[in-house]
């Protein structure tokens, strides 16, 4: 029984922040090889959901369960969840002055190596590794010496997030509005990066407001989140329907 549990199972999840209940009995199951798009109006709880999966300390879990590969992760620290293969591409990647992108990426990479008792890599070895990945998101090596996200354009920040996802080779990647604020070229580059990264062993949650991302990345399912719950699930066509009709028609 249950030899191959789903990659992620979220059951009746209830979450609050500062006494405000944001997620209200949320259910979601994701299998390996699936891409799930979550859409929904502002304030419906999409970003909260992504941060809760990653273990952000500000949220309290009131009820429910989150299973990753069949085991509960509710008691795990954010860094442990990261090591297990959960990655969150932030909607607004934060700027960190004084820390070079390269040092940050290497430390992240080596932290995971160490967690799995693998040897840490030195800066030269790392450069060879990261150089390969840079090409996948069309970034120049000059990115490495810049401070982490500092002075990056919106598109550069988002590409940097995808670069980190590829580097850490996560199994469950949650992309929180990675498409917002991107021009068409950047959207294409990022989508290509995501599509090349995706395979039958991985899963992706795409949180987005726009159908246009789904023109490049084909979702297995589209969910609509409203008031802390998933109120409708459908195929890629649901997104197209939403694009023309808005969310109003679902709320009745």
């Amino acid at each position, binding site marked *: 029984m249950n030899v191959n549990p789903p990659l992620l199972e979220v059951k009746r999840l209830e979450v609050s922040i500062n006494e405000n209940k944001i997620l209200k009995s949320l259910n979601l199951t994701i299998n390996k090889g699936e891409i799930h798009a979550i859409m929904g109006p502002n304030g419906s709880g999409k970003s909260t959901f992504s941060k809760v999966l*990653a*273990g*952000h*300390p*500000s949220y309290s879990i009131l009820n429910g369960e989150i299973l990753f590969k069949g085991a509960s992760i509710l008691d*795990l*620290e*954010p*860094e*442990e969840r*990261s*090591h297990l293969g959960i*990655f*969150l591409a*932030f909607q607004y*990647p*934060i700027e*960190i*002055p*004084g*820390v*070079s992108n390269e*040092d*940050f990426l290497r*430390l*992240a990479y*080596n*932290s*995971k190596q*160490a*967690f799995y*008792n693998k040897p840490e890599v030195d800066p030269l070895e790392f450069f060879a590794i990261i150089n390969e990945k840079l090409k996948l998101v069309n970034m120049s090596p000059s990115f490495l010496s810049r*401070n982490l996200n500092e002075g990056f354009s919106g598109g550069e920040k988002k590409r940097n997030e995808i670069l*980190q996802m590829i580097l*850490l080779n996560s199994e469950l990647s949650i992309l929180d509005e990675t498409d917002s604020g991107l021009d068409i070229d950047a959207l294409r580059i990022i989508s290509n990066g995501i599509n090349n990264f995706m395979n039958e062993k991985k899963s992706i949650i795409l949180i987005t407001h726009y159908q246009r991302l789904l023109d490049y990345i084909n979702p297995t399912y589209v969910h609509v989140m409203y008031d802390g719950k998933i109120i409708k699930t459908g195929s890629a066509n649901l997104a197209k329907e939403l694009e023309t009709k808005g969310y109003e028609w679902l709320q009745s």
Partner: protein
Amino acid sequence: MVNQSNKVLNTNITNLVNQNYQYGFSTTIEKDIIEKGLSKKTIFLISQKKEETEFLLNFRLKAFKKWKKMSQPEWAYLKFPEIDYQDIIYYSAPKAQKKLKNLNEVDPELLKTFEKLGISLTEQKRLANVAIDAVFDSVSIATTFQKELTEYGVIFSSISEAINEYPSLIERYLGTVVPIGDNYFSALNSAVFTDGSFCYIPENTICPLDLSTYFRINDQQSGQFERTLIISEKNSQVNYLEGCTAPQYDTNQLHAAIVELIALENASIKYSTVQNWYSGNELGKGGVYNFVTKRGICSGNNSKISWTQVETGSAITWKYPSCILVGDNSKGEFYSVALTNNYQQADTGTKMMHIGKNTRSRIISKGISAGHSKNSYRGRVNVINKALGARNYSQCDSLLIGDLSNANTFPFISIQNSTTKIEHEASTSKIGEEQIFYFLQRGICLEKGIELMVSGFCREIFTELPLEFAAEADKLLTLKLEGSVG
């Protein structure tokens, strides 16, 4: 280090803060003490104990007279209870034989103390490239490599020794950079200073070793009033390092020091400090009150004075290492990292006085405030009308950790000619929950994340420190910040 279970790490981290001051021990030793309180009599006694010349006794008495008429400065952004100057021991020295001929005669308990602080004074284990003067409470107990330095004509000794052996140099220079009436604490120090270091680098000499003084406050009730004087003659160079620690007491100790630097023509002095006096506990109890006047004069043309400080300790820090740029083309530098945590308060910065032509100064100040602490940069750049072509660059960056700390910048600039160029830059950044979560989400543990952010923030300063100090400073900051977040 990385793959420890981080959950354990996070719960332990709050405990770590309580043990982070590894120099908090005290040494039990037989002491020679002048009773608490400050009067003319105390000064006569100090002078007598040190068998001083009349010049020095008069110097002290004059300072005492001035001090009595002055009052404690109140302009700094610091809050602390009134200091009872009659409740302080002004002289506390380990009892020793009359004159020490060599280190073997130093009380082994003292050698052990310094050994424990990581400062080895014994022949076998000395740091190969650093000569050290070790000051314990009121007196210098040993100076290493003195003989070797003498071969180069370099004088490196305790100031007490210098007062007796090189009276002409002392009379010529003592109190010339920091006049006795300069400020309340300099007057106090001039009246009661008990020891400190003296360095003299002769003409055309590059000092072959880094010189270093290690200050240790041991006694619970004694103040430390040391005085350092460094003279760098024409075409000479010296690197000087200063370290400080004190035991963990729940009362406050007073430390009021003076450092005077004199750089003659084409001379260069680089003075680095890593200050780690006991800073009080996490509730703000105890800790050293650190009121220090440090000033250097670039009296010769093309001379240079560079201050680097890493201030991590003390409950109160009041300190403005400054440069008076008299010689044409002379250069002053100030590089500072000041870190405050818990209830520490620091008001620190520099003064650059441009007097000569084409004088240059550079100020890089990095303040890190964590916990409930207050951290202020206070700086003054003065350019007089004759200082044509003067230039100053100032950069003041503040880093806030958590939501309860406080950072301030008080820059003051006065320019009296139109050929001067001044640049001032300032920034404030924060390590808060979101920054930390970003690191955690990428699998980087709290400690490593903060270490990376803090050392990135301080990099410019650490590159100014001598190598051994830089590594130590990096570690020290990380240690000091443990438990400040999360």
